[in-house]
Each structure stands twice: as C-alpha cells, then as structure tokens.
C-alpha cells in the first residue's frame, strides 16, 4: 500500500517537473516563466520528497527529507519575487495577447 502511494507520488513529482520545463519552453515572457517554474517545480519536488519520505527508515530521516521542502519553497518564493521585481523596475513589459 505504502509502496504504491510512494510510487504514485514519485510519478506525480516527475509530471510536475515536466510541466515546469514545458512552461519554461512555451510561455512567452519572464513573468509567466517564473510562474511556471516556481509553482510547478515546487509542487513536483514536494511530491517527490513525500514519496521518498514514506520509505525512509526512521522518523528523523523522513522529517529531514520533508525539511527540504519548506526551505526550497521559501527560496523560490523570494527568488521569484526578486527577479520579477527587478524585471519590473527595468521596464520589461509583460506579454499580452
């Protein structure tokens, strides 16, 4: 049961990473690429970490894996804002249809 759940989570993680890369390739400007990378890759990493934590040997090892997630979330949230802020200051206009 746990095996299956962990497998499903790993595959879901791979899917979200893929979606992030597709977003990077297909979205038209810096802002929307930031959306794609920050949100999709974070979710992908979260899924993968949960999937691995289910198989960890001890509680502390599982918690250590899960500790990475909030760290990466905080990092990408602040990088995302910093890059978007800078792009806005430099006058890069968002893409419109």
């Amino acid at each position, binding site marked *: 049961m746990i*095996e299956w759940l*962990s*497998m499903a989570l*790993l*595959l879901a*993680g*791979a899917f979200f*990473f*893929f979606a*992030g*890369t597709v977003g*990077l*390739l297909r979205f038209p400007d*810096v802002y929307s*690429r*930031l959306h794609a*990378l*920050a949100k999709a*890759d*974070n979710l*992908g*990493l979260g899924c*993968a*970490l949960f999937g*691995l934590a289910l*198989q960890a040997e001890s509680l502390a*090892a599982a918690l*250590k*894996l899960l*500790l*990475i997630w909030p*760290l*990466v979330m*905080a*990092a*990408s949230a*602040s*990088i*995302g804002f*910093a*890059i978007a*802020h*800078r*792009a806005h200051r*430099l*006058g*890069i206009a968002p893409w419109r249809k």
Partner: protein
Amino acid sequence: MTTLMQAVALFLLANLVLALVVAARGPTPADRMLMALLIGTTGTGILVLLAQTMHLPALVDVALVLALLAAIGGIAFARRAWQDVEGEHD
C-alpha cells in the same frame, strides 16, 4: 522501486539539461537567471533521489546545502548583477 527512482532521476536530469540549455541561450539575462530556480528545485530533487538509490543518506545534506545556496545565487543576481535590459538583441 529502485528502478522507478532511477528512471525518475534520469527523467529529472534530462529535464534539467534541456531547460538549462534553453535558458542559457535565452534572449534576456532574466531567462538565464531562471536557472537559480531550476538549480534549487530540480538539482535538489535529483540529489534526494540519488541518496535513496545509492544508499548514501549523506547526499540529503548535499541537497539541503544546494537548496540554501541556490537562493543566495538568485538574490545576488537579481539585486546586484542585473542592471539593464541589454542583451535582448544578440
């Protein structure tokens, strides 16, 4: 299970390399700096998968350090190095 993890790690590496090549050639400096985000998330993901498949729990520590320092690189770029929109034409 190990095979699945290896497959996912390979898939993530392929994703990372593809995105890095595209982003490194990207037209604006900002495209190149999306790398900080990519390194932080995808690199960390690959490292934790490797930690499990290679039975090397110490690689989780490498992943933690990578996640922390990718943030520093991204912020350094956004606040210090990126000062104009030049580079859009070459």
